[in-house]
């Protein structure tokens, strides 16, 4: 059968486009990886031999480690709060009927399309007006605003796929609302809760704009990196760090994706064996 969308020659051309785009996307990363092992203080050709010293140096850079710790605290706090807010909002949006649903979801998703620069300065003005000193807590407060839309976007589709009849069965058997949520709904949406947390965590861990405006004396990792990049004095070290961070986040992304697929398949089989017809046909 001939393909109605692409001719054979067209397919070859498109494959070439895809290959070229991947080259464009990955070549800079590969170049960084090569130079992270290059034994020279300047990042220039010709290459001058293999070394691991840039990796050792960033590991023993105290300032950097403190910034990494601050980022971990900010990311963990902000994503925990964002996920909690996201779960309750998603349950209301999917399961309840109420007036002004469009406006509510609009408000919750709005930070998605507002430039972070505006979010950053508006929160700076707020904390200034309320005389709240800037710290890693003010950064976390801002990151919750950024993360909430993403948690809602991850949780709502999953919740829509969990059949209401399972919850109704629990209620009919005498379980209270909170009890039904704890024993039925939450376990079923747990994979989405975990991926919402991961999305929010990575978002916060990498966020530099809002963090720059809301940082007090203690900066986070991206803010530290930004200052290092504007006035690069320890370039090879930063490059080694960049390669390490990209490798770790690459593994996390791939791991999360595999985990999500396994969880989705398990949900489909669980629900299928529980005999809910509407789950049939889910890949």
């Amino acid at each position, binding site marked *: 059968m001939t393909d*109605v969308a692409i001719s054979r020659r067209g397919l070859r051309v*498109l494959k070439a486009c895809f290959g070229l785009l991947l080259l*464009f996307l990955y070549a*800079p990363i590969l170049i*960084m990886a090569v130079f992270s092992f290059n034994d020279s203080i300047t990042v220039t*050709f010709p290459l001058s031999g293999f070394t691991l010293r840039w990796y050792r140096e960033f590991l023993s850079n105290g300032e950097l480690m403190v910034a990494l710790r601050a980022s971990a605290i900010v990311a963990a706090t902000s994503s925990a709060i964002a996920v909690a807010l996201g779960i309750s909002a998603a349950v209301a949006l999917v399961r309840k009927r109420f007036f002004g649903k469009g406006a509510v979801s609009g408000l919750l998703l709005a930070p998605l399309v507002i*430039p972070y620069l505006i979010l950053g300065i508006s929160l700076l003005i707020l904390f200034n007006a309320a005389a709240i000193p800037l710290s890693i807590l003010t950064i976390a407060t801002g990151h919750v605003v950024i993360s909430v839309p993403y948690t809602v976007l991850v949780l709502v589709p999953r919740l829509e796929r969990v059949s209401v009849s399972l919850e109704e069965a629990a209620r009919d058997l005498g379980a209270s609302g909170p009890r039904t949520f704890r024993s039925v709904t939450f376990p079923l949406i747990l994979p989405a809760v975990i991926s919402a947390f991961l999305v929010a965590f990575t978002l916060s861990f990498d966020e530099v704009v809002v963090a720059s405006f809301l940082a007090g004396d203690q900066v986070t990792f991206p803010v530290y990196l*930004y200052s290092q990049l504007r006035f690069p004095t320890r370039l090879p070290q930063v490059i080694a760090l960049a390669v390490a961070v990209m490798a770790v986040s690459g593994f996390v*992304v791939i791991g999360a994706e595999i985990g999500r697929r396994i969880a989705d398949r398990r949900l489909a089989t669980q629900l299928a064996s529980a005999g809910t017809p509407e789950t049939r046909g889910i890949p």
Partner: protein
Amino acid sequence: MAVEAGADLKVTSGSRHMRMRRRLATLGLLSPSLVYMGIFFLLPVGLVVAYSLGALTLFPGDRYLSLESWGYVFGRSLYMDLFWKSVRMSLTVSVLVVTFGYPVAYYLAMGARKRKYVLLIVLIAPFLTSYLLRVLAWKVILGGNGVINSLLYSTGVRDPGDPISWLIYSQFAVILVLVYVWIPFVALPIFASLDNLDRSLLEAATDLGASRWKTFWKITFPLSIPGVIAAFIFVFIPTIGDYVTPALVGGTRGYMYGNAISDLFLGAFDWQTGSALAIFLLIVVATLIAIFGRFLNVRTVTIE
């Protein structure tokens, strides 16, 4: 009819007490997120408006209750020129990104068959790594003593000390890096619109004698326009507000509107003019969303 009436009866037959409890439960679920977004999103934006009008000031001697800040935004050609320059740069980036992203999304949706989701992840993976580090990669490559220039020096193509001047700290550098940063992202909405396309429409067109080229322009492309517009807006908005990339690779030639706002806040401490500039940007963004909002199915940007 009878069934509907019965269902209706069931809803209204709950006692007043029950209805009250249901409402309270909904309110309890909604209020945490609404209160949070009210305090830390709506209120702060309101404060920015207040600052731009001088209803709130940073220092005692600042302009109190005046439109002077807005006068600076529109009256001085400095800021409006910068705004239009940034619009031009962001438009260039958006057009380039959609032009390059479309064929790739088309290939994934139409040509890649079983492997399409794996290939989509390969394409998007760079987008999920650190933004700053991707900009750093280009700073290292384009720099005066960077990878490209030093390669030219060591091969004797150019004399050391004579770097290609437009490679870094230029509009070119900003546009290149922004295209690099955003291109994996645009593939998503375009891919989603093409992937959901009803293939039987294409078969019908072929059966009626249309060539593939004609089928594409008459059917596939018009049906994918919502995805294209979504991609365009999702790139245009963050790039017009960006100041990080221009600050790192733009220099003075690549200075953008966002840099002016951030410098007014963090450098010059003229929060009033900065607020007026920010509110103007917010109005522009809100207008775009109001016009094109119906194309922005936000779910297409989460990998589902």
